[in-house]
């Protein structure tokens, strides 16, 4: 997909001025946060599980090559096929190749962020194959021609009135006077429309929450059941997964499952956790004849062994964005690529380059709420700071900003000079403010005074007054 992250600032201004979006974002702030807290409080072992989940992924990443080997061997043993894709393009071509061999006309899709990352929908369409999103949220945004604005609630930015309008425009074969006011009726309509598409599809594409090295199994975690219909009904099942989804054993997956849903939606466990191993067997009466796994790198191996490796622990629960004041303010689309919120602020520059993604790690107050709720203990603010360091090392930030910082830092390293400067500033700004005690505008402080007053200094610095008082 086209990346608009370099225009993050103007995207944000647009988002802030969009009343529908602002109303929709209100739902995020209330629902997710309370539910997560209740779920976390309800399990005394939650913190211990977070620690263990982190340790499991750290161990896995330190041995990723070996676990990938073990995993792929098991997939082949169970009759499945493993395809290795270094880039998004490689992955797209592999999908197309499998679809062509299957003579596929339509492809159903379970929710998959990797499929967004490689832009598979547009690519399949260009090649005459119709991709059909089946997750309700994904279906809605596919009708709208949009990208997801949240990694687990893709249509979180859409109001129900907008869904109604989209359904009326798309489902023209249905009675024009039908009632579609309530979410219930919208859901029923989507269920009916999509049911036939599930049955007709030639290929089903899903993502994976985990790939189990011990058994060669892919795991999806869903609530609707669409992922299961996608991977059970068509003749061919393709799993799109990135290499860091590897998890060693059934037990390790169980451990992480306990923190995943609780952090994401506040459920103790999602409704459907499905383990798929190879194609259908002789003893099976349903399931796909072919089972393919595409293992995608797309820049992740560059993160291994660097200060960004910890990001590869991410299990895509969305808790970081659910708790992020910046995400709440601007929504997911402003981030301009596939992954929004704090995890996107680290991942986007990692996968798409700091030149394009530089805005995101800068657009953070470092409030740390993301890290405090991350089930995998990913130090998100620290990694955003590392991106700022890389940017600074490479002189990528604006010259005025760099020079301002350099001059300030030089003065801060000379306390005598600093103290004179502080006295002058304290006196000067206080004088400008006069009896008002605040300034509504001040040269060079427009970023501040555009939206808020600047409280005036008392007039003398603390150091000045302290020395005058004879303090030591």
């Amino acid at each position, binding site marked *: 997909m086209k990346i608009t992250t370099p225009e993050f600032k103007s995207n944000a201004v647009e988002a802030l001025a969009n009343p529908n979006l602002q109303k929709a974002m209100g739902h995020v702030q209330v629902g997710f946060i309370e539910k997560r807290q209740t779920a976390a409080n309800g399990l005394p072992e939650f913190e211990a599980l977070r620690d263990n989940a982190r340790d499991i992924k750290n161990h896995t990443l330190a041995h990723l090559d070996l676990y990938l080997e073990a995993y792929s061997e098991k997939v082949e043993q169970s009759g499945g096929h493993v395809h290795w894709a270094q880039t998004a393009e490689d992955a797209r071509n592999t999908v197309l190749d499998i679809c062509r061999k299957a003579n596929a006309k339509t492809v159903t899709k379970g929710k998959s962020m990797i499929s967004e990352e490689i832009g598979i929908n547009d690519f399949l369409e260009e090649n005459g194959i119709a991709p059909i999103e089946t997750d309700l949220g994904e279906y809605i945004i596919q009708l709208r021609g949009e990208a997801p604005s949240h990694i687990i609630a893709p249509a979180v930015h859409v109001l129900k009135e907008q869904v109604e309008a989209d359904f009326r425009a798309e489902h023209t074969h249905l009675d024009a006077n039908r009632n579609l006011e309530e979410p219930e009726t919208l859901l029923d309509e989507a269920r009916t429309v999509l049911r036939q598409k599930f049955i007709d599809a030639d290929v089903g594409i899903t993502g994976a929450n985990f790939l189990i090295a011990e058994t060669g199994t892919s795991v999806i975690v869903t609530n609707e059941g669409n992922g299961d219909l996608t991977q059970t009904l068509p003749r061919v099942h393709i799993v799109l997964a990135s290499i860091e989804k590897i998890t060693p054993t059934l037990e390790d997956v169980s451990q992480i499952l306990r923190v995943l849903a609780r952090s994401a939606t506040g459920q103790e466990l999602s409704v459907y956790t499905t383990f798929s191993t190879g194609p259908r067997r002789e003893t099976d009466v349903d399931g796909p004849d072919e089972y393919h796994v595409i293992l995608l790198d797309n820049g992740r191996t560059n993160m291994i062994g660097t200060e960004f490796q910890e990001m590869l622990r991410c299990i895509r629960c969305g808790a970081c964005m659910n708790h992020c004041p910046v995400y709440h*303010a601007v929504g997911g689309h402003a981030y301009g690529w596939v992954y929004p919120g704090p995890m996107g602020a680290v991942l986007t520059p990692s996968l798409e380059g700091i030149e394009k993604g530089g805005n995101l790690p800068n657009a953070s107050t470092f409030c740390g709420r993301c890290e405090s709720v991350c089930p995998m203990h990913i130090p998100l603010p620290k990694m955003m700071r590392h991106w700022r360091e890389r940017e600074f090392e490479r002189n990528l930030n604006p010259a005025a900003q760099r020079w301002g*910082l350099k001059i300030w830092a030089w003065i801060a390293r000379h306390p005598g000079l600093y103290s004179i400067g502080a006295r002058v500033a304290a006196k000067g700004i206080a004088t400008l403010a006069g009896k008002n005690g605040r300034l509504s505008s001040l040269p060079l402080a427009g970023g501040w005074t555009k939206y808020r007053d600047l409280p005036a200094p008392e007039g003398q610095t603390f150091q000045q007054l302290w020395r005058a008082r004879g303090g030591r």
Partner: protein
Amino acid sequence: MNQPKVGLFVTCLVDLFRPNVGFSAVDLLEHAGCEVFVPPAQTCCGQPAYNSGDRADTRAIAEQVITAFEKFDFVVAPSGSCAAMLKKHYPELFQGDADWQERVKVFSDKVFELVSFLTDVMFVQDLDVKFEGSVTYHDSCSGLRELGISHQPRKLLAMGKGVELREMKEPDVCCGFGGTFCVKYSDISNSIVEKKTANIETTEAELLLAGDLGCLMNMAGKLSREGKTIKARHIAEVLAGRLDGPAIGEAK
């Protein structure tokens, strides 16, 4: 215990904008039985450079702070954000540097934020809090999440017989200040602080308190721009009873 020697890390914002907070901190520390020193060779903790990716300058500033303060028994700052910088982030800056690592660790272990220092280290049990009226308290992010400061300020406020604490909705959510963030991304910052001031206003408290002057200036500046009457002060001013002068951004 002998009278502990405390080096007061004033913070650049308190030094420049609000000396009253510095004097309040001195009063509170002395009341708790400390001997207070204010080294002249202090400027800033280095966060503006650190959070802009300029590690070299940050490190130079950190060396300066450590050298000026390491002789004291404790180093105390009236700011969770600056204290967290000294306590949590300085060690990271010197990681792998054999000459400094141990020295920084000894220094950082001695650093505390003012309010939590009073409750958790000096075990202050009685504080004659003179203020009478209603307050609401904003948990500044660094203090809350990096240093675990949450019950300590509430505990000290409760020592005032006439203090009524009215909790705002989401007191633990960022005010949108974020250092240079509030000017670099002023539109987003504004949206965040608007939600904060709305939550503050709903409490109908007379006074907004927090432990960090940066957040306070942001919230006070927004409240004043919105024409709201609630006043803002650093919690140390209320605890020390230094309430004679105007509140933050208030007319004289």
